[in-house]
């Protein structure tokens, strides 16, 4: 079961869990802050809406299309 770090907090998840699913159970359960300051969470779940853009180990990725890996660092407020 991989353990990833979301906004500095560790979280252990089942193998094959997407980063989107993981961050929806951690912290404020949101993936990003909108241009007017609203917190947003994954919406479409299929790589279209871009609401789940997060930083994964320094790269901007879509959380719903990224699988959690052990030691992965995810930031929802980069």
């Amino acid at each position, binding site marked *: 079961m991989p353990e990833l770090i979301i906004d500095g907090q560790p979280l252990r*998840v*089942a*193998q*094959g*869990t*997407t980063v*989107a*699913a*993981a961050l*929806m*159970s951690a912290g*404020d*359960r*949101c993936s990003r802050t*909108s*241009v*007017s300051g*609203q*917190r*947003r*969470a*994954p*919406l*479409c*779940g*299929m*790589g*279209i*809406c*871009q*609401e789940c*853009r997060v930083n994964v180990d320094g*790269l*901007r*990725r879509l959380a*719903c*299309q*990224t*699988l959690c890996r052990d030691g992965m660092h995810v930031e929802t407020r980069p």
Partner: protein
Amino acid sequence: MSRPVDLLIIGAGPAGMAAALAAAPSGINIALLDDNPVPGGQIWRDGPQAQLPGLANDMRAQLARHPNIHLHSACKVVALAGHKRLLLEDPERGWLLSYHKLILCTGARERLLPFPGWTLPGVTGAGGLQALIKGGLSVEGERVVVAGTGPLLLASAATARKNGARIVRVAEQAGPGAVGRFAMGLWQWPNKAIQALTLFSGAYRIAAHVVEALGSDRLEAVRIQMGERVEEVACERLACGFSLVPNVEVAKALGCEVRDQAIVVDNWQASTLTDHYAAGECTGFGGSELALVEGRIAGLVAIDRQDQARALWPQRERWQRFADRLNRAFALDPALKRLAAPDTLVCRCEDVAYASLVEHGTWSAAKLNTRCGMGACQGRICSTAAQTLFGWEPPVLRPPFSPARIATLACLDEAEPAA
């Protein structure tokens, strides 16, 4: 620079997998791309809380058994790079790939319409919630409202319930006539859908739609209109979507004819562009059975097995009739176009409100004056909504077709110069 592939298939859902497996016995070089980490598309999305049918697992196993099928997961098409050449990107690198024949199996996405509160955390698409649950989202003990339109609502509610959610309401906007027609056709659907309908008969409402999502930082309740009445339902999640829209961006960019937002294909699954085929939801909604047979036909045609392809036409015809009946059933109530309040955001990427948009006559004018559609989703969410709300024609995308690393895009310096 890679060697050209004989056959490039974009999308590894049922259609794409069927196409690859149909073409593989010929021994030609096949590249199968999918932007998800694992093949299966939406309906066969894998994950810790997914339950794949036997056929899906079989097909994935078969893919692995053909050495001439090269599966590129987490891989997306970023741009056109000349004649029969595409720029691709995966998490590690960007690269150019040439092909001789192409089969587009790009599937469909949900239509999401704006209503007050739809940007609250806790609100997702209906297919969106299903995808997130399959990917490991826990909904144990949560109260869920499923709303919008189409058979996808029942599938989504079933997945949520199976994973411990309490379905407090399923609000289908279509009226009794439409839903009756759908129910009459249900006998042809997989058993699960029938079970779902009976399971939720207590919670199921027709001619009902969400008018507002309530909450401060997160969703706390929704208001649902049913006739003259508005009920307020406390819940943790709202899964709301309004049918599916084919993903036709790459097809349009290539120059394939697209009509009513679906790729136009003939009996051979051939698009209007030579050596380019399309199969599955991107040619129009039809469900996985239709996608499988369309994919198989396209794969056979790509290896010049026309006779074998033609033998599948009756099967395709049968599933097409069923799909047509479904498509007619779920027309959208015009009230759904008027749900947005003046301050309801329509473009979620750039936070552009309904009031700013409504004065413009075309998508182009709206974009010019408000930055709507200039964000990361490149208008996929908001231009699809705008088509329903205002009748505006969605744009043709320029590169990148989705956000891509600059280092990837720089690879285009090896693309053919424009004519």
